[in-house]
């Protein structure tokens, strides 16, 4: 419903307007029992206002905010996060990421995460909405030390559902590479035009407008945890869970971002006690 209120500001719809180039660097460190935000540098409109400790010292939470509210063609967002040894951080966003009509230039988002020994990062953003004619290039490069823990989800919604908008033109590109100890352990790549066969294909999206992936890299998944995730059912959507040697992958293909989020959150409730030995406590920003 949120996206009903947001149409691109007129100035951003005009070709030739200045593009936002935003870069945010965050560095988390650990001192004794406390993880904290030790480094923060931003250039352009991508910021973290403050860090929080809603569940105690161990995990530092932060909300990554993009003040313009939406991303127009030609904009480039970069988020660079480093976790020093032992630090743990949870990052989320205050609302859906909105990607506007491209006006001929692609908008990009680049994630670079580096996790040092014994550190952990949870990257749990709210959904990404591609407006009709959005052209986006998303990439994520993640480097994990031998025993670092990484949990991340990504939910994409093609078209503004509240307005029954269909994503009829545009490009969606997504490259994600995860390395552990410099070995590539996950390589996911999508290149989909709005008129691509993948959208209707039986093995692509089967006409679904929403798809999502939840990955956890924390070593071998205990059988009971895997089973608990598999036991979660979702009406009217297709979901699947698989445990590769170093990557747990959970997928959703369906019709509602809200449902995808709920599903991933339910999985997260099962997974966090395994990879962090602590319960999943939903960030309060998700309630607003």
């Amino acid at each position, binding site marked *: 419903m949120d996206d009903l209120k947001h149409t691109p500001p007129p100035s951003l719809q005009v070709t030739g307007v200045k593009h936002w180039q935003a870069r945010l660097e965050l560095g988390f460190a650990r001192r004794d029992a406390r993880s904290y935000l030790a480094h923060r540098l931003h250039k352009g409109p991508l910021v973290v206002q403050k860090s929080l400790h809603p569940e105690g010292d161990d995990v530092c939470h932060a909300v990554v905010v993009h003040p313009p509210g939406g991303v127009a063609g030609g904009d480039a967002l970069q988020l660079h996060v480093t976790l020093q040894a032992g630090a743990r951080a949870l990052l989320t966003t205050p609302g859906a990421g909105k990607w506007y009509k491209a006006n001929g230039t692609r908008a990009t988002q680049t994630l670079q995460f580096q996790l040092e020994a014994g550190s952990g990062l949870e990257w749990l953003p709210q959904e990404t909405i591609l407006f009709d004619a959005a052209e986006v290039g998303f990439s994520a490069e993640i480097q994990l030390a031998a025993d670092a823990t990484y949990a991340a989800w990504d939910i994409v919604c093609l078209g503004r559902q509240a307005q029954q908008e269909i994503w009829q033109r545009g490009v969606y590109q997504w490259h994600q590479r995860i390395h552990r100890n410099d070995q590539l352990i996950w390589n996911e*790549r999508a290149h*989909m035009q709005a008129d691509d066969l993948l959208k209707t294909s039986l*093995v*692509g999206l089967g006409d679904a407008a929403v798809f999502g992936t939840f990955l956890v890299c924390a070593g071998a998944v205990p059988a009971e945890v895997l089973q608990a995730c598999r036991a979660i059912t979702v009406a009217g959507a*297709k979901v699947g869970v698989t445990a*590769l*040697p170093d990557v747990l992958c959970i997928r959703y*293909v369906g019709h509602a971002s809200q449902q995808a989020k709920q599903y991933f959150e339910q999985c997260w409730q099962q997974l966090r006690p395994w990879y962090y030995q602590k319960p999943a406590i939903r960030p309060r920003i998700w309630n607003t």
Partner: protein
Amino acid sequence: MANALALSRLLQLASPMLPVGAYTYSQGLEWAIESGEVHDLDSAKQWIGDVLIGYQARFELPVLQRLYLAWQQKDMAAVLEWDAFYRAGRDTAEGWAETRQMGYSLVRLLQDLNDLPTPLLTEIKQLSQPAFPTVYAAVAQHWQIPLADALQAYAWGWLENQASAAMKTVPLGQVAGQKILLALGERLPDMVAQAMALPEDHISNFNPLLSIAGCCHETQYSRLFRS
């Protein structure tokens, strides 16, 4: 194909008799049948055709092409890079295990055949858990099978195996199986050409419902296939 010996080698490599266990894998098709998505000749053809276009042409073949060229140029760094690229791109436990097992079996066969020159065989044996296409590419280029033919043979082998899985499981008769091969086999030359022209940036393994079918297959109660 100009080289008649290379044609023999190509047929050998593409034959279901190649002892790498390809026939034990359905790559999610068995789940598609279990769930009712695939239930007759038309739906089987649709599913297999969709995988051919959405996955084989955009991921397997372009990667196989790069592996072939890397072997041909004796560029081991590129071989390792594309091998890792392929393996990390297998996004289900069964899909990952499948390529590892088939790669292993092909290496074993090459050792037993004792046909490859020692330096090449040594390089192949030094790979740690190579993917099937990595080893396939090494042999194909050594046997002087032209690149486009090697890609088409690879896709053909995959297609034949899928048709056979559909015949066993839907089940479908011999003629239906041949109809699948006839219809989809016709698309292979164009598909290979497209795969060979695909910019590196567009290589894609994004087939969420195929991945989900692979996931669901892992817990399928009654099954003939290992993926």
